[in-house]
């Protein structure tokens, strides 16, 4: 049964994964700014503790569904940089042979059923994955990641109702980063988000999404209970995205202040906080962590170089995979 991560290796793993996400995103942003990346992409920076705290409570046979802001979930669930960068650049060695791109990145080898470009679009998929586990007598748990904005999609209430009726092993993880695109959450969500889940008889929790230990402890507990058939559960994770809605959203002052951004970055950063904790508790030294950071930066640089040099899918692939054999 899963339990909260408490030993050194587990702690370092959580730190490593958060830094890997941040590094991945910074690198992806550079690719965008230098016009090397096709299309737009949505940065997960600032929300690392959410994906990592939850995914570290999961195993490979547990599934997740992800969102348009999906790189963090993908890394946290075990994906490799190389295949991820290849995907972002539309290369054949990407997780989806370049056909999905940032908004559809999936990694079924680690149980990531994919990012989704339809807000809320994966809520049915996650709940169905949980139904399948239950029907087949497996104790796998599925986590459905989605944003505060997605709570406006009616689909969520339809599937929460069925999950509750049938006690499905699914955890709805609402990443409340305060905004959907250029609009504040309070302008688009009436009442209380957790009360909405509770009205369907679903146990709901709110947690500081910038505190990876708190997230992981809660996730581990709920995952364990879901495995035993006590699900579904709902978690609202209070968090923040550092970048714009997407990489092209540069001038943001008309919808949120620089002071607010600064406050979150400087005073609530999940990596800074956790790093301080590790050092203070003597779990790792500053040097250890610097070395780890440097290793991750080197990995990212290598993966990007690899991806940039990698081949595009050949033209014949364009009408391949429309139908499975």
């Amino acid at each position, binding site marked *: 049964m899963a339990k909260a991560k408490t030993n050194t290796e587990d702690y370092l793993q959580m730190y490593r994964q958060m830094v890997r996400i941040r590094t991945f995103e910074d690198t992806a942003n550079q690719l965008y700014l230098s016009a090397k990346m096709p299309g737009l992409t949505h940065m997960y920076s600032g929300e690392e503790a959410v994906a990592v705290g939850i995914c570290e409570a999961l195993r490979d046979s547990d599934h997740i569904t992800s969102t348009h802001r999906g790189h963090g979930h993908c890394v946290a669930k075990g994906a490799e940089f190389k295949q991820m960068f290849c995907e972002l650049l539309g290369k054949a060695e990407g997780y989806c042979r370049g056909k999905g791109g940032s908004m559809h990145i999936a990694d079924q080898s680690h149980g990531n059923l994919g990012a989704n470009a339809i807000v809320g679009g994966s809520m*049915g998929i996650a709940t169905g994955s949980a139904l*399948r586990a239950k029907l*087949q007598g497996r104790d796998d748990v*599925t986590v459905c990641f989605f944003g505060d904005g997605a709570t406006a999609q009616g689909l969520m209430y339809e599937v929460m109702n069925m999950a509750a009726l049938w006690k499905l092993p699914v955890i709805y993880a609402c990443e409340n980063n305060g905004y959907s695109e250029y609009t504040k959450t309070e302008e688009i969500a009436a009442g209380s988000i957790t009360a909405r889940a509770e009205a369907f008889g679903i146990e709901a929790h709110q947690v500081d999404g910038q505190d990876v230990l708190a997230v992981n402890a809660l996730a581990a507990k709920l995952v364990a209970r879901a495995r035993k058939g006590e699900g579904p559960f709902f978690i609202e994770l209070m968090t923040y995205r550092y970048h714009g809605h997407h990489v092209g959203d540069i001038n943001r002052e008309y919808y949120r202040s620089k002071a607010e951004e600064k406050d979150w970055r400087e005073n609530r950063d999940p990596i800074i906080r956790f790093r301080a904790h590790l050092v203070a508790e003597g779990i790792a030294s500053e040097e250890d962590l610097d070395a780890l950071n440097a290793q991750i930066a080197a990995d990212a640089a290598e993966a990007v170089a690899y991806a940039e040099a990698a081949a595009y899918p050949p033209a014949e692939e364009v009408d391949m995979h429309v139908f499975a054999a």
Partner: protein
Amino acid sequence: MREITLSQAVNEAIAEEMRRDPTVFLMGEDVAEAGTPFKVLAGLVEEFGTDRVIDTPISEPGFMGMAVGAAMTGARPIVDLMFGDFIFLIMDQLCNQAAKTHYMSGGKLTVPLVLRTNLGATRRSAAQHSQSLQALVAHIPGLKVAMPSSAYEAKGLMKTAIRDNNPVVIFEDKLMYQDKAPVPEEEYLIPFGVANVKREGRDITLIGTSSMVQVAEKAAEILAREGISAEVIDPRTIVPLDEKTLIESVKKTSRAIVIDEGHQSYGVTAEIASRLNEKAFYHLDAPVLRMGAMDVPVPFSPALEDLTVPTPEAVAEKARMLCAGEMIHAAE
């Protein structure tokens, strides 16, 4: 050979496949004890239990989405959508999710599911319970679309659909549930993309889908009495479409009418007619004609509703004109 109803044929197909493959399960509104309002699934819950025959709340987008997730992770769901008209409610899950997942994942994820639903007007069910919406799903790459024209096809196509590794949409004709046809006791499957030449003929090809196969056959009988020999073809699946068989027939007869119960404009008949025009052009003695349902919401009043769908008489009339070369003047 024994004769069974289309309803029994569907029921048998599903039961056989559920026995064969434990990952197959059914979900939809009132599919269990009630066996659907049309009673098509009666008895299945008794054999397979409520774990595999699942009554859902009235949440079409929700359970369609769940079927996609279950299919992606190793099950083979059959989704029961009570009326074809409700397909509008599930388009996102069907067309943005189910249809595209295999492609978007570069072939790594598959979505083997069956959506069974229905089509057909003249039941006095009015505009939101009478539509034939096959054209919409046929337009979306990644979906296969089957249109059984009898109990025999209903069983064979359903079994193929359940074993297919892609999302398949099956449109049954609500008015045909009680129609009987010979169906072998032995197991059989009907492959997708293979049209069925129901009747051979020399002078004109009548291509009908679903219920319109019967309409075409009746038209052919009328025409036969007048000395016009019509070939009748049932494509059985419109995606994939067996254009080869259709084209060969038209090359032989030089004339064709395509009949489908969906609205005519931007509908199924346009695609089939276009392919015939493109690929048998130099063999045609007359334009390929199309007969779909009128481009109107289906009216409730019996006095109006019956006017909206193609009838054998109307098909025969058009065929006669084509054969007489009258379309030259009619068309201009």
